[in-house]
């Protein structure tokens, strides 16, 4: 890598890297989408004090929070085939992409569930009573009254967590998923110019993050439509 700095390489490699952007976006979309579903589910035991399950999710969340995502990725990549193998199913040849999805889903779900738990608790219980008083069932109350408002409260934090997760997707290459980062590594081997390629990668990630931030702000404004102005500044 002793070659001199070549600025033109930064520009030239951007389209090459971008051709793998869809992998990054797929990882993000799937792991955030599935993470939201799982996150809501695992928020339930603690919200509604379901014994045993409550303890299990508490340990799970604390474990995810307390370990680096890279180690989680390796644990899933090497550990999951062993566990599944006990049931006679061989997944050792499965595309590493799926291990990445599993890991990021599990990780996002832990973060999201804590965000949801706080947000659901923040919705005034009086509205739940009003919902019951007009004859809604607990389930209808949850998805029609409580959840939409909790989602608004949770959204900014979910957006932040998703942006962190976007940056974390760059670790997927460690278990052999060919994403932008992976493509970057091969470009580096081919050109022997590491700095230029990393600059290109940094630019791409940064621009994507900026686009997502803009998009999220926009959604946030829509979600807040029913608040008066002075509530918004809180």
């Amino acid at each position, binding site marked *: 890598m002793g070659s001199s700095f070549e600025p033109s390489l930064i520009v030239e490699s951007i389209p090459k890297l971008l051709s793998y952007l869809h992998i990054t976006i797929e990882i993000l979309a799937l792991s955030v989408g599935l993470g939201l579903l799982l996150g809501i589910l695992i928020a339930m035991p603690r919200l509604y004090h379901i014994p045993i399950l409550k303890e299990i999710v508490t340990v799970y969340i604390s474990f995810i929070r307390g370990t680096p995502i890279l180690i989680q990725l390796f644990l899933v990549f090497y550990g999951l085939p062993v566990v599944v193998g006990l049931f006679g199913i061989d997944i050792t040849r499965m595309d590493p992409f799926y291990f990445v999805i599993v890991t990021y889903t599990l990780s996002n779900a832990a973060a999201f569930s804590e965000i949801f738990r706080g947000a659901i608790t923040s919705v005034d219980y*009086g509205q739940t*009573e009003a919902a019951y*008083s*007009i*004859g*809604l069932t607990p389930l209808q109350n949850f998805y029609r*009254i409580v959840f939409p408002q909790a989602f608004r409260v949770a959204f900014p934090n979910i957006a932040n967590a998703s942006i962190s997760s976007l940056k974390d997707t760059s670790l997927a290459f460690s278990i052999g998923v060919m994403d932008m980062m992976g493509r970057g590594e091969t470009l580096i081997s081919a050109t022997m110019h590491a700095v230029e390629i990393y600059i290109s990668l940094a630019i791409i990630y940064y621009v994507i993050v900026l686009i997502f931030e803009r998009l999220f702000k926009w959604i946030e404004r829509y979600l807040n*439509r029913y608040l008066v102005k002075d509530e918004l500044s809180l």
Partner: protein
Amino acid sequence: MIQLSNIQKSFGKTEVLKGIDLQVNKGDIVSILGPSGSGKTTLLRCINFLEKANEGTIKVDNIALDVKTASKKEITELRKKTAMVFQNYNLFQHKTVLQNITEGLMIVQKKSEKEAIEIAKTMLTKVSLEHKANNYPSALSGGQQQRVGIARALALNPEVILFDEPTSALDPELVGEVLDVIQKIAKEGITMIIVTHEMNFARDISNRVVFMDGGVVVEEGTPSEIFNNPKSDRTKQFLRRLVPEFTYEI
């Protein structure tokens, strides 16, 4: 018709309701009066199972439930026959005024959107808020929010509307508009049970007044029986403290 028999409710060791019997006939407007902590709110909330009584039976129209054996499904069925107006309005904050009213019509009563909107608009006209149909609750004054709360309850055409101090969270200058609305709908023959500290209002609006103290019904009767000729000492004492100019014939 609503029939409560032997309603008992404790919070931990505190006995709040000590066996309440109450019958409310169709079209009755019953005011429940009593000192703070006497169990008025708790009684009202036991009727639609927002609070689960420990003992007793509750009958609303053709649904009679023993509180100890009532299933979730039966409770929901009973709630469909009642509606409640809350002290703090409890409007659905993420729904417009119109949607607050159509929610129960469409989701619970399974009416078409068109029909629900039509009913909602009629109700909004009744509470003089048709021009606020598309506003969110946060953009309304307390008095306006409470009128929406009343419209939401009224729209469901329930057997009974339960009011828990509908004006006590309001600024004094907004109390009148809400009381006027309640008075107006009272004339339509809807059965109502109203917990209130507004004595004059209770006297004007109701055909029956129930006085509660310490978790029991101390006395009940027509407004003139209770206000002009109370029998129990506790009622007299309560009214004397609450209505300074209050006098009764001896």
